[in-house]
């Protein structure tokens, strides 16, 4: 039974991927890409990697899909490159060669694969966390996670840098051309409170079961965007100090905890013994907040309207 289900999943993933790269209108290809992300999420669940599945669905399919949708919806979007049949065949052959090479290498890898999982499990009690993924992200490899939050902030700065000089401190463009009926507002009033609860739960549960800051933050970002699209929240003014403080809370809260590690523990990013879990949850809360705000602003794009609109 599960074999049939897996085969169906693989078939669906292949079909969605083909649809996403096939010729045609941009919008339907992006839709196929988002469907592909959802199916991939199910594949990760089948591989028992629930944390990866949640991230794939929330960030890989959801947020990325939104950014792509906004790109294809632009009036001045360039026409898709008209590639000839020969070019497409060549690209297909190259892709097949890469696939064959990768498959060969994967089959050559040692079995069973060497892994650090037992090592993580051995040290998990020292972190006071129940979810080994969170332990790796926030404790054992905290530097990587800290810098990933900076990368996200930097991506937003890069997007903002594309704005015209006079609107640097202004508002991003309108998310939807015009609310055509009250349906969106009704939907937002219904969905946003539930979604915020789901996002907060994902962050809170992340310490012990699958979930965490990135997944929770992505859900919260989606809810903020929905509220903005429905006109329940105003488009943010990007120069507001309070908004920018929200952006900085995660990376710099994390950095501060890292620096305090020199004082209260014995190394940078070491957590003070006894209160590890409380500090980790505080750090995760700050990161969740900043990720939510950063992702939402990334989708909204560079400021294009002056503040006094």
């Amino acid at each position, binding site marked *: 039974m599960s074999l049939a289900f897996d085969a169906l999943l693989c078939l669906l993933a292949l079909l969605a991927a083909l649809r996403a790269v096939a010729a045609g209108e941009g919008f339907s290809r992006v839709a196929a890409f988002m469907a592909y992300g959802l199916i991939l999420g199910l594949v990760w669940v089948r591989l028992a990697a629930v944390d990866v599945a949640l991230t794939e669905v929330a960030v890989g399919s959801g947020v990325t899909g939104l950014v792509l949708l906004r790109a294809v919806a632009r009036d001045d979007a360039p026409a898709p490159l008209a590639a000839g049949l020969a070019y497409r065949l060549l690209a297909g052959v190259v892709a097949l060669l890469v696939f064959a090479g990768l498959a*060969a290498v994967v089959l050559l890898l040692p079995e069973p694969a060497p*892994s650090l999982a037992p090592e993580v499990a051995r040290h998990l009690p020292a972190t006071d966390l129940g979810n080994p993924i969170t332990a790796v992200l926030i404790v054992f490899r905290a530097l990587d996670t800290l810098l990933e939050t900076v990368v996200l902030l*930097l991506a937003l*700065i890069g997007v*903002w840098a594309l704005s015209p000089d006079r609107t*640097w401190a202004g508002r991003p463009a309108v998310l939807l051309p015009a609310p055509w009926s009250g349906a969106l507002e009704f939907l937002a009033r219904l969905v946003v409170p539930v979604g915020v609860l789901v996002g907060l739960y994902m962050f809170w549960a992340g310490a012990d079961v699958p979930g965490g800051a990135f997944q929770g933050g992505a859900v919260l970002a989606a809810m903020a965007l929905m509220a903005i699209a429905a006109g329940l929240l105003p488009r943010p003014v990007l120069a507001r100090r309070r908004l920018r403080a929200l*952006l900085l809370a995660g990376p710099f809260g994390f950095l501060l905890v890292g620096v305090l590690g020199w004082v209260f*523990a014995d190394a940078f990013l070491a957590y003070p013994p006894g209160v590890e879990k409380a500090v980790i949850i505080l750090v995760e809360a700050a990161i969740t907040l900043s990720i939510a705000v950063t992702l939402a602003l990334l989708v909204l794009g560079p400021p294009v309207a002056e503040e006094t609109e």
Partner: protein
Amino acid sequence: MSGGALPGLPPADMLLVLAVILPLFGLLPLLLLGSRLAERLTLLVLAAGLAVALGIGAEVAAAGQAATAFIGGWRPPLGVGLRADGLSAVMLVMTAVVLCATGLYAMTGPATPRAAGERMPTAFWMLLLCVWSALNLVFVAEDLFTLYVALELLTFAAVPLVCLDGKEGQIEAALRYLVFALFGSVLYLLGTVLIYALYGTLDIILAARRASVSPGLVVALAAMTAGMMAKAALFPLHLWLPPAHSGAPPAASAMLSAVVIKAPIFLLVRFWLDLAPESLAVKVGPILAGLGAAAILMCSLVALAQHRLKLLIAYSTAAQIGYLFLMFPLAAAASAWSALAWTGGALHLASHAFSKAAMFMAAGLIAEAVGHDRIKGLTGLGRALPVSVAAFGLGGLSLMGLPPAGGFVAKVMLLSAAVHLGNWWIALVILIGGLLAGGYVLRVVVPALQRPAAPLALRPVAGWREWVALALALVAVGLGFVPLEPSAYLAIGRPASWAEGAP
């Protein structure tokens, strides 16, 4: 925390972490204050960063061994280790000097036109600080995934620099750069995944201990090498570089061409000299050197044909990185001469950083004064802008490999090693490359020193910015006075291991 080797300095492990996180603290005032005050605070951060880099250099010299730090106190393979050996320390100091000079140059320059608003200066300073943090992490991280994060940080800081002016064509150049850089990142990540699957660790030192030649390792290293070649713009993957480096604002070009491009090359050195088994490195060295030789010959010829100054300098970068690839077969060979090639390669890397930053800064000032950067229109400029032309000329002197510049000593070292190791073709390429560099530098300098046909109408430029460029060029020349022998400092902490400095 292990104690510092020098009294009065923070412990070495703290300095290593500070090198990575200190520049990031500059983002706080830039995002929250966004004014002249923030710029002043940024300059303070730059000065502090320079002090940290010099501190690491001094600690490594005093201890005679690599400085190490373990994040959160977790040692590899579970945790992430940072480690600075002699080469890392040299790279840290070189980057600090170039970026501090860039900061001084950008302070009052076209990169910060107050009248145009807050966008450009604020974004520029934030990107500069992130570039610095990312580069320092590349130079000290021992963990393959931490290095991936560092490369991502570097990419997302460097790409917006290209289109900071917001001019037509720059967005396209930036996008092309982004595509090449992300392609490189994906290949790098693929290699990293394979190495973890093979050896169960992401730590370079631990993986090197377990590494043996196998198809998986060959594919992993090939993917990572191709990725770094795309990021370093090694021929034939160099097509993104000239438009990106020549289209950026001058301060950004100086940064991109002088130091950003060196990060992937530094990582290639780590892969092939620290991670790969020697038997494999010896086989791959000639391939890398062959591509380097092609880069030197092809890109130098293209540079000769350029009509615009900044494009000429950009093509020169694509050519000069070729020399760094000539180092691989020489340094990987088991011979006493390989240490000399190693020193020569590192010296070329540093002297190119200083001279190229000086040349891009000088070119920026020239374009600002003359209003264009067409090489034909620069006749007689030497009288009007003597300091900038001198900075360009002295930087060029080092590229040509004329004595007494740093480029001269570096090329002599590479040449001697090539001749003694029997790699005649490498010696020949070095000589021809020097001639071609002479051609494209003199094409600019000789007319500039002539009497102008008609008096040049120049806009004034800030004199002290010219002196920043000249100072960097003089550093490049001054590197020519390092002794002509394998450097003992560069040998500190090699071959790499975690044994030293263990708590």
